[in-house]
């Protein structure tokens, strides 16, 4: 039997093996670092059928969130305002604006404006808006400074772990109910301290078991 391979083959095999092992380690580590959930920008920002500016309405004009989203403290769903709500003002203000053409059409045809939903939770996750709002969780906690956004985009990951972070340790995110829609609220004391007092008073106990949300 003759040698099938040259003498240096065994050294080469070990070299290649080592290189592959190091490469795999670096790739795995890199993926873990770059792909870490905390590194993923939510940033979902679809184009809406009407170029509506939250900054103008909620920020500059100072309209309360609940003027339009009027069910957030009563229902599990947050209402998207109907065209009628918009027309309360826009039948007078900027009544002829080209930008608002789709709105007027929808109003006349009695059909909703096809707004694109931005903050979507999966079907298997049950979320109750009123429970959160009435407990004193501000809009800003999940939706960010909408009053500063011309076009709304998603700023929080809305992942399960992100929900749980607050459910496990809610104090810092709880404020008196009257300030829920005040997105730029600045407490004079430690917010966690205020939160703890409210938690005791309202007996708030966010669920951390599976069936709390997956019903």
């Amino acid at each position, binding site marked *: *039997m003759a040698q*099938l*391979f040259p003498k240096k083959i*065994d050294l080469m095999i070990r070299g290649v093996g080592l290189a592959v092992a190091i490469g795999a380690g670096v790739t795995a580590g890199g993926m873990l670092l770059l*792909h*870490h*959930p*905390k590194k*993923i920008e939510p940033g979902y920002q679809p184009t809406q059928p009407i170029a509506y500016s939250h900054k103008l309405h909620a920020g500059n004009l100072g309209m309360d969130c609940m003027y339009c989203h009027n069910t957030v403290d009563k229902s599990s769903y947050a209402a998207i305002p109907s065209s009628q709500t918009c027309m309360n003002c826009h039948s007078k203000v900027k009544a002829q604006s080209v930008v608002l053409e789709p709105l007027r059409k929808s109003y006349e045809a009695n059909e909703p404006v096809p707004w694109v939903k931005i903050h979507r939770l999966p079907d298997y996750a049950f979320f109750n808006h009123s429970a959160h709002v009435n407990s004193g969780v501000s809009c800003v906690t999940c939706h960010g400074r909408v009053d500063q956004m011309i076009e709304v985009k998603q700023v929080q*990951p809305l*992942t*399960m*772990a*992100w929900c*749980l972070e607050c459910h496990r340790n809610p104090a810092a995110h709880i404020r008196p109910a009257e300030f829920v829609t005040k997105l730029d609220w600045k407490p004079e004391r430690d917010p966690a301290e205020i939160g703890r007092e409210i938690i005791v008073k309202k007996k708030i106990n966010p669920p951390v078991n599976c069936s709390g949300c997956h019903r």
Partner: protein
Amino acid sequence: MAQLTHDQELKDKLSAPLAYGNPNFHDVTEAVSIISEVKTHRNWYIALAITGSITGMMGLMIAYLIVTGVGVWGNNAPVGWGWDITNFVFWIGIGHAGTLISAILFLFRQKWRTSINRFAEAMTLFAVACAAIYPGIHVGRPWRAYWLFPIPNEFLDMWQNFRSPLLWDVFAVSTYGTVSALFWYVGLVPDLATFRDRAKTKARKLSFAIASLGWRGSATHWKNYEKAYMILAGLSTPLVLSVHTIVSFDFATSILPGWHTTIFPPYFVAGAIFSGFAMVVTLMVIARWIYKVEHLVTMTHLENMNKVILATGCIVGYAYATEFFIAWYSGNPYESYVFFVSRATGPYWWAYWSMVTCNVISPQFFWFKKLRTNIPFMFVISIIVNIGMWFERFVIIATSLHRDFLPSSWGYFRPTFVDIFTFIGTFGLFLTLFVFFTRFLPIIAIGEVKGMMAANAHEEHYLDEAVAASQGKEPVGAAH
């Protein structure tokens, strides 16, 4: 002459022959290697075409399932686990015989394992491959199947629930698959070296040279090899028990009547060995005939396997009996309902009694030596046993689920064509892998058979002495 034949019979009865025709070491190499070395036969391509197209059909079914969703299966409420889990447990169970033969019989110094262990280990691997398909597609989103593994997933920033038996299963099955593959490969290395040394073509020589890693068979090699083999056998033995034990935990940790019973772990293990041995018999009967290795895989091997089938069949029967007895003894109305109504007399009575007939009654024929050494008969029984063991998993799953606690949520499971063709397709995959295995790799552990022959030759004189002593004679050359 008559005396000699009679003596030989007695010797065979004391220690049944593990090879016929007194082959020497070279004959063994030749008999096994030639299978892979001859020019590929036309029938091989035909076999591959058949099994390959069945596998292809499975591929189509799985593609359809993934594109459409698990609604294409017959699973419903309340029978949320249907054929997917049934087939998963069925295939995992089949695999167990391979490890049993390679590891447990090794530890028990059962020499008859040597001719069949390679084949049985291959069966383990292929069966685990078939089984692993099911959890993958059952999750609904197979492209997320890696969420089963302990990697924090990138979207939810969460960890698996290690308190769930389903996750234990992931660990058990993947550990089992990995360790079986390693065990199989370690055993193959010396035989791959044999193939390398016999290879005539350059391509064959190079590929086996690489696969055998430069094995030389030095005393140092064998020393570490035997130690590794012993340790792997020692590890695989509890491992194989743990796999079906953990599969049984999937059911038994719940509080569902008919699932929650403490005998499940050993009962599942026995059932797995039972079905696995039956599958080995089915395949071995065909393979030893096609590849003409009847002198190496002898009737002794087949008979011993049938004895194991009988023993494990009785253990399974013992478990059925205990469950029934305790269901009655407990006085628990839910337990009684499951066993006496749901299973024995309910809408699934046909499945239940098929299971009992195939698993408990059919192996009883093996009490008779005539029947357990009859090749057509054992072939039929081995298939019946596998049908029975499939029914066992189906009965456990469907009968316990189909009667929920409220009569309003009672149901009945009917498989769809996707269920049926996927299951048939797994047999295609299983056989395709076998077709490749028998073509390219040594189907019998050449080195181990030689080792067994050397050891046996050494023990021949004990038999001579014993037979002579029983006839009141001193054996020839009794000076030992």
